[in-house]
């Protein structure tokens, strides 16, 4: 094994783990934007809600049942929130997309403040569930099992989402809407229901990502904006509405965030911005986005 990989294996694996977590988070954001041109700025706070929920239900050292309950609860809450957001932004559909984005911003402010009122200002730490809290040998290095599990979960989800989008009729509708929205509504598909479902699913994934990410990030104020920014960069680089783009973008950003930080420490932010700028200059629609470009 090349010496370089040996030294940095841990970082690379970390990058994969974070990358897959980001994918789970960002895919919902990407689809919602690709389908409805709605930038859901409350996406980060959904993640945070999931993280807090896992602490609330399982405490700092959750058991397996409480971990799973937290996952289900976060999913349900996320789906409900997504449906609600879809309704709220739907009311503004006739106005500009900016107004819709601002609405989600206002909602996220309210939610974030409510969360810090309930849970306080400290960062709450959460352990991985038992069985996943140890370390395993990977290529001669000791590595946290939980992060390996995260990579597995991410792969599984990517496969599920891919199948869902390629094989189901809902997925076909989503793909069609991302490609040509007017055509789909002209054909008479009830896009409001589809939008609500996509919004709900995307938000469900975001809050579940919060539960999955709690053992790594914990739960505390400011986390929502941190992950929101990362998710946005992923979506912009990967291309709006593209699941493949979200995956590739998430893995790239995951690597930059971890490998970049261990190699370059503080300069990693600039690599991030540099990558963003580069993609935007060379390919403004993102790596896998539709060539229609940035819709206003």
């Amino acid at each position, binding site marked *: 094994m090349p010496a370089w990989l040996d030294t940095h294996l841990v970082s690379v694996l970390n990058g994969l783990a974070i990358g897959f977590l980001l994918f789970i988070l960002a895919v919902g954001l990407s689809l919602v934007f690709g389908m409805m041109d709605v930038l859901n700025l409350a996406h980060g706070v959904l993640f945070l809600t999931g993280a807090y929920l896992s602490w609330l239900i399982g405490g700092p050292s959750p058991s397996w049942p409480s971990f799973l309950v937290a996952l289900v609860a976060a999913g349900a809450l996320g789906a409900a929130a997504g449906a609600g957001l879809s309704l709220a932004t739907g009311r503004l559909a006739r106005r500009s997309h900016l107004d819709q984005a601002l609405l989600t911003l206002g909602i996220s402010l309210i939610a974030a403040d409510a969360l810090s009122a309930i849970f306080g200002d400290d960062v709450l730490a959460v352990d991985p569930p038992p069985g996943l809290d140890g370390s395993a040998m990977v290529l001669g290095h000791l590595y946290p099992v939980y992060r390996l599990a995260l990579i597995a979960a991410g792969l599984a989800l990517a496969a599920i989402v891919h199948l869902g989008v390629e094989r189901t009729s809902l997925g076909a509708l989503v793909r069609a809407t991302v490609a040509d929205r007017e055509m789909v509504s002209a054909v008479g598909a009830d896009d409001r229901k589809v939008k609500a479902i996509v919004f709900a699913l995307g938000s469900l994934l975001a809050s579940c990502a919060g539960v999955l990410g709690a053992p790594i990030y914990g739960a505390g104020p400011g986390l929502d904006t941190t992950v929101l920014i990362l998710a946005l960069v992923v979506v912009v680089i990967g291309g709006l509405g593209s699941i493949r783009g979200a995956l590739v973008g998430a893995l790239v950003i995951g690597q930059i965030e971890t490998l970049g930080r261990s190699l370059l420490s503080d300069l990693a932010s600039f690599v991030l911005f540099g990558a963003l700028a580069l993609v935007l200059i060379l390919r*403004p629609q993102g790596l896998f986005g539709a060539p229609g470009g940035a819709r206003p």
Partner: protein
Amino acid sequence: MSVALPRLSGRAAERAALVAVLALLAAAPLFLTPYATSTVTRIMVFALLAASLDLLVGFTGLPSLGHGAYFGAGAYAAGWCAVHVTASGPVALAVAIAAGAVVAAIAGCVAVRARGVFFLMLTLAIGEVVQQLAESWHDVTGGSNGLYGIPAARLGGFSLIDVGARHWFVLAGFAVGAAAVRCIAASPLGDTLRGIRDNEARMRALGYRVYHYKLAAFIISGAVAGLAGGLLAAHQRLVTPPDVGLGTSILALLAVTIGGEGSLWGPCVGAALVVVITDALGSSLGGHGPLVLGLLFVVVVFALPGGLARAVAARRRAAS
């Protein structure tokens, strides 16, 4: 999405109101407590920031969620200059303006290629990067502790130490900055920017170099935001990363949206509202200033499109 500036009628009334407001602002240190005066000073700083953002949002139609970056750049630059070079007030402000303009130029080159919500995302990411920079560049910015111990600004031999002196310094800076923004808004450049906001495609078809104008608006807006930042440094004598960050950017956009983009005076009123709610009323609201603002924001977006300015204009039209 905006209100056309009243050009003909009501000019005299406008002038009178302006004079009254300036007089009140100037008189503040004479009859308010130091804390209240300081709040009014902060309102002016924030109002200038909001006005600079309005030039971008309300006039050119570019919704920026990262304006804190240029504000902070100006604040840090002015503070650094005061600490390391000269405590001269005007020089620090000039440095602040330049810093805001330069950072805006760099960011704008990339950001201005995008439109609408896409542009919003970009400015958000850029603002975040600048905040990271402020937190990690210990040698220059002092890292997360911030840039403290900024000496009092010097103006013509006087050190502006007490609240009143600082207040009047900021008032002067605010008046100049606000006048500059107002000037541009009423100029052919302002008309061009409004044209771009209304119908960018048509402007291209008419032969305008739209990218250049957008970039120019971005840079000018950044320069004025930098000026506001310089005034912050002179007033607070301390600059911290949150001044640069997303929180500031969001509050600025809130001020513009609540006040009414495109009207310039609306964002100033919105700024006053935001500062009062987050600072002055902060404790009596149990520290839930952000919650109240969020609610206000949601209400405005839902029920009051165009903010207070448009509501006022509609009422004025209905009355006449």
